[in-house]
């Protein structure tokens, strides 16, 4: 197997190297040359790739996931594939995150998440190593109107459409 794939983002690689204390070439660093940094995934690339695989990300959620924050640790291969490593509820989890919005199309009933807002940590992660992804599952609609608790399935979907609350594509 070949070595680490050289980054295609030299500026990013430079910054990462600086943050990791690898020294800045040309500034008189006495440290020996550091090995090339591992192949970091640029944040925007991570977001784009995650957005391209919403079904894969949503499939990492446990079936009984409720609205709120869920922190997933996934192995993100950067080629559009995700491999869940661990899942934990993380209410109020702090951190520096970049948000994106993932719309899960299809049925919104019986606990299926209507929308999942996902976040990846600034700086993203290493290709092939676990990456923490924070998912905020938006509560199913309607929020402030009281509806029968057993209103599920097509009846509930129809109600949401009737009130103009159905997600795009739902």
């Amino acid at each position, binding site marked *: 197997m070949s070595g680490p794939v050289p980054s295609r983002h030299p500026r990013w690689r430079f910054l990462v190297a600086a943050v990791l204390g690898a020294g800045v070439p040309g500034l008189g660093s006495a440290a020996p040359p550091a090995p090339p940094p591992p192949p970091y995934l640029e944040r925007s690339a991570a977001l784009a790739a995650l957005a391209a695989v919403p079904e894969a990300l949503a499939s990492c959620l446990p079936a009984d996931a409720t*609205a709120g*924050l869920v922190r997933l640790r996934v192995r993100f291969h950067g080629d559009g594939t995700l491999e869940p490593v661990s899942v934990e509820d993380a209410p109020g989890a702090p951190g520096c995150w970049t948000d994106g919005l993932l719309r899960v199309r299809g049925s919104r009933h019986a606990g299926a998440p209507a929308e999942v807002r996902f976040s990846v940590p600034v700086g993203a992660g290493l290709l092939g190593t676990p990456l923490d992804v924070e998912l905020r599952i938006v509560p199913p*609609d309607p929020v*402030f109107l009281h509806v029968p608790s057993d*209103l599920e399935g097509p*009846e509930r979907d129809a*109600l949401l459409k009737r009130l*103009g609350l159905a997600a795009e594509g739902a």
Partner: protein
Amino acid sequence: MGRLPHAIACSIAVSSCVHTGVEPDVAPPRQWSVSLDIHTETARSDGEPLDTVLRPLARIDESRRFSIRGERALRHPDGSRSTRLRFSGEDPLSGRVVDLRHFESGEILALDWLEHAAGPAGGIDVISPIFPLVSPKVPLLRRGQQGRMITAWPVEVGPDRKVTERIRTVWTHLGTQRLGGRAAHAFRYQGDWETTGEDAGHTPSVGVEGRGRATGSLWLDVSDLSVMAHEFDWERRLVLDYPAAPGAAVQLVQRQHLSGRVDQQAVGR
């Protein structure tokens, strides 16, 4: 003179102490059983009958029974406390957690993680009054005195969905009574209930406006001013605007009547 004013004054003094940072709160946990009867009726504001899709909303009757365990978690530098409210019992809310940040006076600063309890199964629309039931803001009163109090609490279900609940009530201190073998300060209150806000999780947003009344009776433990029991009878007329409804905007009027009782329980493991 009852001990309540002194006790509340002491607790306010303690709560206003300046702390250097967030500290663990070692106060013992509390637990309450909640019985909540819900009755709602929904109609269109334009007088048109509900169509087939909306008809399930016409009348809803539910009885909910659950427990809330309040575990003190943190003391904040401003003197407020975070109490983790854990729901249990045979109820859709069982297992859900809401973080209540409040002062010793009962004033609620924030409710976090409400999205865990939102949606049709949890029913945040009808459980939001639960929080001031276990954390009421009571005026300083002597026995037989009356006093006014405005209590407001935010109901934020994620960043885009927010309403403010507000009750403007007149309280009467009825004196000290025995409840379950313990001495309790007894109060009665009645007043107005207002709800304003929007669900901006959609474009255009869903408007939410409510008006109604709140009446109840409250018993506070003489020794620590915790809620021993709370009987409540609250109702409101909630108006919800759905401007994105296909064809033409829909405005629904939902009358919500919530009644029941909260009782402090012995804390289980």
